[in-house]
């Protein structure tokens, strides 16, 4: 039991690191905030990462609630991405890389490797735990950095519009997380 708890603590700590990674890197990378092209690039990267996580879950997860959540993530984030692409085209903004988007990708690669190594209920729980941490981090980034720093009013408004969506995803993930905890706590980790 102690061993299991320790592993859980280590994994939770890794997720907390992931959750706090974005603002830290952002602060270190630039004295001023990201430009609008960089903001569009960050949102696009964040969307693609969650779509990839969702597709990975659909290829591995068996749990009905987890699969439903993963399908929603692929669907909703694809819709967000289309909105972002449409707005970028309208505004003539070309997405640009930044330290934040690079760190997002690097972190996602590590998380994906960890998830790929897991199976069954362990995967389900790790995927949902990561979704809770990831959405928490992304919402924090959007609210504290991207919205305040966006220069274009339409881009700022579009970013504000993503908050309730991602907040909804976070609460949905927390509900699934609670249901998994209630039914599979003995076998997780």
């Amino acid at each position, binding site marked *: 039991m102690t061993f299991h708890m320790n592993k859980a603590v280590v994994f939770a700590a890794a997720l907390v690191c992931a959750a706090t990674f974005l603002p830290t890197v952002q602060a270190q990378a630039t004295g001023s905030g990201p430009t609008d092209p960089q903001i569009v690039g960050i949102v696009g990267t964040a969307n693609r990462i969650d779509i990839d996580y969702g597709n990975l879950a659909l290829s591995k997860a068996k749990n009905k609630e987890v699969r439903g959540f993963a399908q929603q993530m692929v669907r909703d984030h694809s*819709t967000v991405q289309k909105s972002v692409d449409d707005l970028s085209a309208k505004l003539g903004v070309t997405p640009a890389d930044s330290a934040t988007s690079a760190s997002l990708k690097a972190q996602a690669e590590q998380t994906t490797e960890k998830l790929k190594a897991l199976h069954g209920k362990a995967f389900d729980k790790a995927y949902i735990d990561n979704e809770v941490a990831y959405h928490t981090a992304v919402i924090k980034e959007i609210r504290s950095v991207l919205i305040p720093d966006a220069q274009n009013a339409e881009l700022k*408004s579009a970013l504000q519009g993503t908050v309730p*969506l991602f907040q909804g995803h976070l*609460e949905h993930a927390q509900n699934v997380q609670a249901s998994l905890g209630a039914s599979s706590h003995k076998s997780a980790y």
Partner: protein
Amino acid sequence: MFLGRLNLRSATLLVATPLLLAAFAGGATPPANAAKQVITQPSTLEKTAQTVHIVLMLMNTNTSQFIYKPETIVVKVGDIVEWKNKDIYQHTVTSIKGKVLDSGNIAPGKSWRYRTVKRGTFNYYCTLHPNMQGKLIVQ
């Protein structure tokens, strides 16, 4: 589909329409009982039309929140409530407690109808975005 689900009330509507047409088509002064029907039938039609209540599902851009609009709707037993998804994301209408309301996923541009069958207050939410909540009161 709309009329089919209304059953008795749609039948009233169908009966009322020929009576109205007959009353006006004659041209001459209608008999007293026919005139009475002309006066009373519009109110029947009005009542029939009011039995479908619309609730929109969308994002409030001022508050940046998903909402059911109106958030609380009060209807009578037997009335139909239609939830219309005006958003670009899928939503659901699902009872928070019990299983009275269980729409499943409603795609953007689609609707889901429910005919109320018992009195009570039914709190519901979107399972996909649990921060989106509404209330149906059936009197």
